[in-house]
C-alpha cells in the first residue's frame, strides 16, 4: 500500500463524513425530511449490534456475546444505567468464557 493510496483513503473517508454536514447543513429542514433524518441511523445501529454480536469473520458465530447481549437487554428493560448494562455484559461474557 503506497502513501498515495493511504492519503486517498483518508480523503475519501473524510469526504463521506462531511457530505451531510457540509452540503445539507444549513438548509431549512421540513418535517418530512426531518422524520427521515431521525430514523436513517437506526437500521445501521441495529445492524452494528447484529455484527458485533455474531460476527466470526464472514460467518455467524454463536458464543458468549449472545447471552451477554441478553443480559444487557434484560437490564435495559429494568432501566439500568448505561455503565451497569455494559459492565454486566462484559462480566457475563468473561464468566462464561472462564467456565468453558
Amino acid at each position, binding site marked *: *500500500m503506497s502513501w498515495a*493510496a493511504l492519503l486517498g*483513503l483518508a480523503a*475519501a*473517508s*473524510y469526504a*463521506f*463524513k*462531511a*457530505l*451531510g*454536514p*457540509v452540503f*445539507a*447543513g*444549513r438548509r431549512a*429542514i421540513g418535517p*418530512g425530511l*426531518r*422524520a*427521515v*433524518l*431521525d*430514523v*436513517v*441511523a*437506526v*437500521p*445501521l*445501529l*441495529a*445492524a*452494528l*449490534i*447484529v*455484527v*458485533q*454480536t*455474531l*460476527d466470526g469473520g*464472514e*460467518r*455467524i458465530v454463536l458464543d*458468549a*456475546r449472545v447471552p*451477554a*447481549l441478553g443480559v*444487557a437487554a434484560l437490564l*435495559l428493560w429494568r432501566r439500568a444505567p*448505561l455503565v451497569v*448494562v*455494559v*459492565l*454486566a*455484559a*462484559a462480566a457475563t*461474557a*468473561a*464468566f462464561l*468464557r472462564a467456565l468453558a
Partner: protein
Amino acid sequence: MVGVVGAGGGALAALAPALLLAARNAVYGFALVPVLRGGRARRALEAQLVIDESTAMARAREDPRAAHRAFLATGLSVFVCWNAGTLAGALAGGGLGDPRSLGLDAMFPAAFLVLLAPQLRRPGAPVAAVAGALIALVLLPFSPAGLPIIAAVLGVVPALATLRRRAAIERHA
C-alpha cells in the same frame, strides 16, 4: 480502515472493504444534520468526529443541545482513545492478554443497544431497526466487513412506508 490496509494485500483488494467501512459515515453525517450547529467551516471541522459511537450517543438524546454536546464529547473521546489504544497496542503487542477473556468484545453491542433503545420511540424506527438487523444477519456470512452495515440503510425503506401512512392518516384526521 488502516487495519485492512496494514494487513497486506494489493491496493485494490484493500480499497474496496476500506471504502465500505467508511461509507456508513456518510449515512451518519446525514443523521447528524439536525444535531450539528454553526456555519459551514465549523460543520466541516466537526464532521471529522462522525463515527458509530458519536452518532449513537447524539441521536439517543432528543434535546438538540444535549445531542450536540454528546456528539462532541463522544467523538473526541473516541478519537483520543482510538489513537492512544493503537499506540499502546503497538508498544505492548500481545502482552495485554486476550481482551475476549475480559468480555470486552461484548461491551460494544450492549452499549449500542442502550443507545438504540430511546430512538425506537420515533415513528418508523422499530420497523427500520428490525429491517436493518435482518439485512445484516442475511449478509453477514457472505460479505466482506462493512457491507452488512452500510447495506442496512435499506431498512429505512419499509420505515418510510410507515411514515407515509401516518402522514396520510394525519391529513384525514
